[in-house]
């Protein structure tokens, strides 16, 4: 028996390898560096790895290869754009994660135990969150570039497992946090099973696990269509779960609410980019020729997701849950870009992902600022009159909400406009009508929050706004500037995306 050594093009894999290396060093730092130095070292290491990874990605942005890792990984324009978006979002999310107020002192301690109290008093900090973040980010980078079903599944688990853990690290309301982590894990495992099941059916259909093999089998025809259809359906369930599309969305409000807010920000923004990135590749390249079977169903899911996300968001009294439902609605908007199945849809979805991701991180960053003595205040009633107490927090939050609502002069408008016009071009008129309708419903509750913050009087309950730390402030300002810049002058980025976003097969 002879073994051939795998041929790897390290240059194209290096954005991921750099992050994995950084994560492994981070684990060692946990073990060997003194407690006092750890936060600073970890933060520097994490930001440094992400930055280095991004620089490497920038260098190779024009490359194209189907054989970056023996056919398991593909690298092309969309890959570069999606990976770049994930890295940018991760970079500003890490700023938030560095704010120690949000994380438990000792993750392993039982809530309310003596052990936990002791850890709190001794000023311990959880710094494991940094390597976990890096592992998750590298999984996210792999997800949209995976080129066979096994790699796709590995990437899915690689990004999910650290997120399950991170969701349980909240400093306050630890029980709720741990509950959400467990829910996320159980439901994630459940949907992963569907995903694997679907992968098995697709293998049964095409006797291949590689994307190109499956596509050839679809194009060639003659296979057993039942296997193909069940395969597509189950694989889609796994992916739709990750993006929080109805009816696979139930985890997201609970997890968004329970998880520490910086983790929610990271999860909401970066996971969406990664999961939609993978969906784009799969539906645009692998399943494109089986379009007749899945577009009607996916359109139905998109419509239900948009409407349900927008409607239920109105009834929310908690700002994090409201943002969770808003993110469900946005998953629906993004699905209309996947359904479009044309070049314009691809460009628009990539632009939307970056614009939405950055506004999301910004919005959750503002949520971390509004506090009272027992931690973050997420009850919307207590956000009354925030505009008077903290113009900075209220104004920036209003800006992000306007971007979510798709008001002109914000990135959200350009995103919604281009994604809906792409869907319309492709003939998905029902989806566009539902999209515009639910945008109108969504605008109702976004603007209600703005009215609440600026035009109602505050209740005297001691809700205060923390003077933002320099890192949190940086996150908010960067996100706000990008949100406005992409709304006012989006042409350069749109052109960049148009030039680069071409899938290779």
């Amino acid at each position, binding site marked *: 028996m002879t073994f051939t050594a795998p041929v790897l093009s390290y240059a194209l894999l290096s954005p991921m390898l750099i992050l994995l290396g950084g994560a492994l060093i981070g684990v060692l730092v946990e073990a060997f560096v003194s407690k006092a130095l750890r936060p600073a070292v970890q933060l520097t290491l994490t930001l440094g790895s992400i930055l280095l990874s991004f620089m490497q990605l920038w260098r190779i942005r024009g490359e194209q290869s189907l054989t970056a890792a023996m056919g398991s990984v593909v690298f092309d324009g969309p890959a570069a754009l999606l990976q770049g978006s994930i890295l940018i979002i991760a970079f500003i999310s890490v700023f938030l994660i560095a704010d120690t107020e949000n994380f438990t002192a000792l993750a392993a301690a039982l809530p309310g135990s003596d052990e936990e109290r002791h850890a709190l008093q001794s000023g311990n900090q959880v710094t494991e969150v940094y390597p976990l973040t890096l592992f998750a980010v590298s999984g996210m980078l792999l997800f949209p570039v995976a080129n066979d079903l096994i790699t796709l599944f590995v990437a899915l688990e690689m990004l999910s497992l650290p997120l399950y853990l991170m969701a349980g690290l909240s400093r306050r309301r630890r029980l709720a946090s741990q509950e959400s982590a467990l829910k996320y894990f159980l439901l994630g495992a459940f*949907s992963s099973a569907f995903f694997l099941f679907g992968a098995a059916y697709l293998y049964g259909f095409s006797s291949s696990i590689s994307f190109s093999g499956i596509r050839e089998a679809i194009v060639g025809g003659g296979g057993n269509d039942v296997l193909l259809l069940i395969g597509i*359906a189950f694989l889609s369930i796994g992916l739709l779960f990750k993006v929080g599309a109805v009816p696979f969305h139930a985890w997201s409000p609970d997890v968004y609410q329970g998880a520490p807010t910086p983790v929610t920000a990271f999860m909401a923004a970066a996971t969406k980019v990664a999961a939609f990135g993978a969906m784009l590749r799969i539906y645009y390249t692998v399943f494109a020729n089986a379009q007749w079977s899945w577009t009607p169903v996916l359109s*139905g899911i998109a419509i239900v997701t948009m409407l349900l996300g927008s409607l239920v968001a109105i009834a929310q009294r908690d700002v994090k849950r409201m943002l969770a439902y808003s993110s469900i609605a946005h998953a629906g908007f993004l699905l209309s870009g996947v359904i479009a199945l044309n070049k314009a849809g691809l460009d628009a979805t990539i632009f939307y992902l970056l614009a939405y991701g950055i506004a999301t991180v910004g919005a959750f960053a503002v949520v971390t600022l509004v506090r009272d003595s027992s931690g973050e205040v997420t009850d919307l009633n207590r956000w009354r009159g925030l505009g008077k107490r903290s113009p900075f927090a209220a104004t920036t939050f209003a800006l992000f909400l306007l971007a979510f609502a798709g008001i002109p002069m914000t990135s959200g408008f350009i995103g919604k406009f281009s994604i809906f016009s792409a869907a319309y071009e492709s003939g998905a008129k029902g989806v566009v009508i539902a999209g515009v309708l639910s945008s109108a419903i969504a605008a109702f509750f976004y603007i209600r929050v703005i009215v609440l913050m600026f035009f109602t009087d505050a209740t005297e309950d001691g809700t205060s706004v923390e003077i933002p730390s320099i890192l949190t402030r940086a996150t908010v300002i960067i996100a706000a500037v990008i949100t406005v810049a992409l709304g006012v002058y989006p042409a350069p980025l749109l052109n960049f995306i148009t030039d680069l976003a071409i899938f290779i097969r």
Partner: protein
Amino acid sequence: MTTSTSLVYLIALPLAGAALLLLGGRRTDKWGHLLATGLSASSFGVGAYQLLQMLGRSAEERPVSQKLFEWIHVGNFNVDAGLLLDQLSICFVLLITGVGTLIHIYSISYMSHDPDRRRFFAFLNLFIAAMLLLVLGDSYLNLYVGWEGVGLASYLLIGFWNQKPAYATASKKAFVMNRVGDMGLSFAIMIAFATMGTVSFTGVAEHAHHTSEAALTGMGIMLLVAAAGKSAQFPLQAWLGDAMAGPTPVSALIHAATMVTAGVYLITRSNFVFDAAPTAQLLVVIVGAITLMFGALIGTAKDDIKKALAASTMSQIGYMILAAGLGPVGYAFAIMHLLTHGFFKAGMFLGAGSVMHGMNDEVNMRKYGALRKFMPITFATFGLGYLAILGVPPFAGFYSKDMIIETAFNAGGVKGIILGCVTLIGAGITAFYMTRVIILTFTGTKRWDEDAHPHESPWLMWLPMAILAIGSVTSGFLLSRGDALVNWLHPLFAHHGEHEELLKPIVVSGLALTMVAIGIAVAFLKYSRNEVAHVAPENVSVFTKIARQDLMQDRFNEAIFMRPGQALTATLVATDNAVIDGTVRGIGQMAMGSGSALRGIQNGFVRSYAALILVGAVALVAAIWVVVQ
């Protein structure tokens, strides 16, 4: 076409001044006005340099363009932010920055006692930048940005003394009436895009040949509405008189020399539209002729010196619009009259400001009289402007206005005779009301209020007046010598054959001078021989009464637009409350209701969530099954 990278400085310099002064706040109080003046002057320097460069090139290569950035790229709608400096826009650039700088200098002294002088200069710079953008934009959309910018600057400057409610109301009136015109411009842009798919000047010019005449007529009429709003032409003229509430340098700069001429610019710039749409072109002529008479008649009855000058501006712009409506033969003369008018009218407004400065801000001419001896320089400069506007040879107006009268006569047929007579009579009335202004202000007996101590203004004020007076004397001769301006602008406008001459130029001049002489004589008989009443007499003819009320323009607006508008708004508000808001509230309540109901699914139990996923999975497979079957 030549490209350049320095055009943007024309706009950037004054814009930077506005930004510095507004953001710098009180810290810039001491030197802000000097900076603003300097920046305006440097912008003039850039313009002059561009002119010299242009002169060195052959006619085809004179236009200079600069692409700033890709502005809007949506689908097949592409607009770049770009600048275009050609033979037409350079005239405007030099007028705006030249007269603008002189008025900056004048304002240093005029506004020296105002605590908000810095803010005033910031707005002036903002205006200069916006006006330059208006004339330099290379597409209708870029022009539109400047168009709105000057509207804003004008609003801010008219209402500069907004502590007086009447002034704030005046600025609001100007703003609202301008909106009507702006709506015309936006419709014109929409028509251009819908029928030709482009909004750039070069693009529209290319497509104009093979676009339906109906579309071009529609676009032309909309452009005319826009021009009427900005240039105070019939029927959107009512705001100009009230705009005189602003400080006098503003009236000179914005409401005499530059902004109000934007309509003339728009029409000459859109020559390719109007040349292909004769109906719209005819409407332009009619609007010009009506406004010409309208303004002249109002001018005869105004006792407020600034309002008399404003009516005169309206009338003179009527001349320009009329000329522009005469097609290729008229464009160059419209621009020539615009330039000479820029000199003499700005000069006279500054003169009026100088008089007001010496007379405790009194504007009623019935309380002036005999100021000639006390303000000799003001009298001299104002007098030269007066001779220029009358069209007495060899002053500037003689060259520009006579050309317009001549062209009007040569328009051919009945149209030519009517237009010729209107312009001739207009010239006579102009002579009458301007002579009236001179007599009431500078000659006769003192009718001052007791606390008035008239004195000549400081040199910072009379120097700009003197320079403008030199322009009023010489500009007409210089611009028409060897047809200099006509030849300069010739490459831009379609070629035209020689028209038959109805009247020889010498006859036209003779007729015009006769009309002017009659006008002067009537004014002398009426005002110089009799004592001027201190208060406007009440027992006057019904025509005077109507003219005093601006020919009922406000009543007209109220009856035709305002009351029906108010009724319409009231109905709309009622409908909105009952139907639209009702629906919205209904949807909101329905949405909240269904939202609350749907929230029930979210019960927090992981087993329910898993069940939901399972149900969803089954539904998904079933749906695919249904679709495939």
